[in-house]
């Protein structure tokens, strides 16, 4: 059973506040200078840089056979060659050109769709809210991978359909966040001002909702970027992602898994996914820490 806090004298509380926050705060002052954040930002920057400059940075053409098939890593081919003689390093770098922008697109669209649904649900309430939330529940009730598979199988494996499928499975999460922040804003307005909704309400809702939900939405988006990359890789692994000869990391792992003794074909794309998704997650954690009122003394409430 959760018990209610005993009443305290205000000054004592403030002192305790500082003392315990100091107890619980980390050794570093600002969120942004922690090793955690620095590393994740660095990794993301590197990958973004690679994604943008890939055509110029790759040592070989990622789509052309440039060496003997299935060569182990060597001084010419740092990551070895694949079953068609293509340079794995180049393909891993080229893969970032697919995975990163696609992940961003997926998250942006999910945010848009989910955000609009959440806004409408929270603002219009009652029936619209009911329908919207039931719809969200419906989508969430499907095992994510099954739904994504079904959509891509239905419309054909391709980059566009993979994005569509992942947007379809992801929007409910954003919808919930936006909706709950709309609701809490509405509640505060109602309690504080005590009158029913008027036209001024809508503007202030939007004005208040966005800052209110920006934090959690941002955290969720960062984490979802990582998840989008993982899901995209999973779809490619199952044969439902971007078409060959595209250098998508998941597809590369799938091909590599046919022959585990050629370990380099699946190891390096796997590591690529691991590093970038970890970086996104770490960044999300850092943002969360930044936004958490308790560790910073209450910036956003």
């Amino acid at each position, binding site marked *: 059973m959760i018990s209610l806090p005993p009443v305290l004298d205000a000054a004592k509380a403030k002192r305790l506040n500082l003392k315990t926050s100091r107890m619980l705060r980390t050794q570093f002052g600002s969120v942004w200078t922690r090793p955690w954040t620095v590393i994740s930002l660095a990794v993301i920057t590197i990958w973004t840089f690679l994604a943008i400059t890939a055509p110029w940075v790759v040592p070989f053409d990622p789509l052309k056979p440039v060496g003997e098939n299935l060569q182990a890593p060597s001084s010419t081919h740092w990551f070895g060659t694949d079953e068609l003689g293509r340079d794995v390093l180049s393909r891993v770098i080229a893969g970032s050109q697919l995975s990163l922008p696609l992940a961003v697109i997926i998250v942006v669209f999910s945010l848009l769709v989910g955000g609009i649904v959440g806004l409408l649900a929270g603002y219009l309430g009652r029936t619209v809210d009911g329908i919207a939330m039931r719809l969200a529940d419906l989508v969430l009730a499907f095992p994510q991978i099954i739904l994504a598979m079904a959509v891509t199988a239905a419309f054909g494996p391709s980059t566009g359909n993979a994005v569509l499928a992942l947007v379809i499975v992801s929007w409910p999460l954003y919808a919930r966040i936006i909706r709950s922040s709309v609701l809490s804003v509405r509640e505060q307005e109602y309690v504080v001002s005590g009158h029913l909704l008027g036209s001024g309400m809508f503007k202030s809702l939007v004005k208040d909702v966005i800052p209110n939900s920006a934090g959690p939405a941002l955290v969720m988006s960062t984490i979802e970027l990582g998840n989008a990359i993982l899901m995209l890789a999973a779809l490619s692994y199952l044969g439902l992602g971007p078409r*060959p000869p595209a250098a998508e990391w998941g*597809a590369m792992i799938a091909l590599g898994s046919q022959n*585990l003794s050629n370990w380099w074909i699946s190891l390096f794309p796997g590591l690529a996914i691991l590093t970038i998704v970890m970086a996104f997650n770490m960044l999300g954690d850092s943002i969360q820490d930044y936004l958490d009122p308790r560790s910073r003394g209450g910036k956003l409430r």
Partner: protein
Amino acid sequence: MKKANHSKLAVVAILAIVPLVLTACDASPDSSNGGGSQTLTVDNSFVLKTLDPGFVYEQTGATIVHVLYDTLVTFDGSDVSEVKPSLAESFEPSDDAKEFTFTLRDDVTFTDGSALDSEDVVFSLNRLKNLKGSASQIVSSMSFSATDENTVVVTSDVANPDVPTILAQPSTGIMNSEVAAENGATDADDAATTDSIGTYLDTNSLGSGPYKISSYDPSSKVVLTANPDYWGEAPGYDRVVLQNVDVQNQKLTIAKSSGDEVALDLSGALSADLPDTVQISGVPDTSYFLSLNQDPAVSALTSNRAFVNALRASIDNEGIAKLFGPDATAASGVVPPAFAGALDPSDAPKQDIDAAKKLLADAAISNPSASLVYPAITYRGVDLGTIVTKVQADAKEAGITIELTPQPINVFLDGQAAGQNEIGFSPNSLNYPVAASLVNNMAPGASTSLRNGWTIERADASAIDASEAVIAATTPEGRVAAMQEWQRVMNEVSPFIPMANNSGIVVATENLDGAVYSPAGWTIDLADISSK
């Protein structure tokens, strides 16, 4: 606080150790045979729907049904040049190759003790035909009758010297007609709708073969036990377990196995670096070809003969063969090298970009671009996407742009049936192990051809004549010659571009004998395997 942490850590540590302890305790038995009964393990990536001979069409099903049910004739080992007697001691073809008289053995009994006679044969074969399922097509032009208890006459609508080969297929397995009928099977003309035996045959074998069904789980494991009443030589293993194992897993498993194990799907590059201790046997019986749509309404480009031949010239068959693994060969014709009537592999066309460009220029085709549809699967150890990627690259050298369109297998099959694909790509296995069976599908106006718009009207007269010549040949030798000529004609005027052939492969552990790949249709004869 510290104590609490320590105890928590202890709990966590103990929990982490437990699984390790468990595995240490049981590290000894691996997936192969332990002490006691003789068990053969067969690692296969299951393609299995039913064990009913009247319906069996998939690979794993065929392997199993072959040792549950006997057929009139059969093949030995990997030799498919001549049928051997099985239930029929002998057979006589008529001169016009339309009637075949089979004389049955009289010492075969089913597991319930009843004798196998011509009634069972006729019942089983008629049922196969009338069920009108995927397996029925091979006997659709035949009719069956019993002249006496031990004699069956098979009559073919058209002259067909390959009837005995067809009757070696697992789907023509003979079942105990009485027990089958008791459980709802029927061979009547309307069997397609009235047969009600359902899944009974998945768990009960009504055959006379060397094995019986012990348990059946189509997603993971099928267990067979030796039939004690078998009329022939007892199989080398009392117990056979077929387990569903993913292909990459198979490779790891067989490399580590201590014995009594075979893997059936390690074709292509997968068989490349296995340890020396395993035995590898294969027969090049699978071909891979492109089909170009000849319907001008679907594609003006692919229905242009010049384009077809230009594409043909631009493809590096040898390079593609390399992708299929060490034993693969470039295709010289649509018949894989395993079968009589195949063209010499050294006659395979070489890549000739200049010729391709010239053909395009002469026909005034500029910037040709077509879409290639293929099933996004791994077949016989090869990812089809890899192959078509190379095709795309080869064609690019001649200035042809190919857009790749992978599809899930079902969507692909559906699209293929609809006949709207510009270029299609698929592997090809024969319905039964005779080259001439290809003519049934790939002559102008035949089913595969129609799916690519190659109607009789659009075909060259030479193709039609060559196909008819094959069918008219009534002796095996005559057929072989006709088939070779047919393939040469096809290479010039057909919309099919064969690229490479690779083998079905069986990998067996060192201690096995008789574990060889068979192109006859059942992949491997489980009853032939014994330990040395």
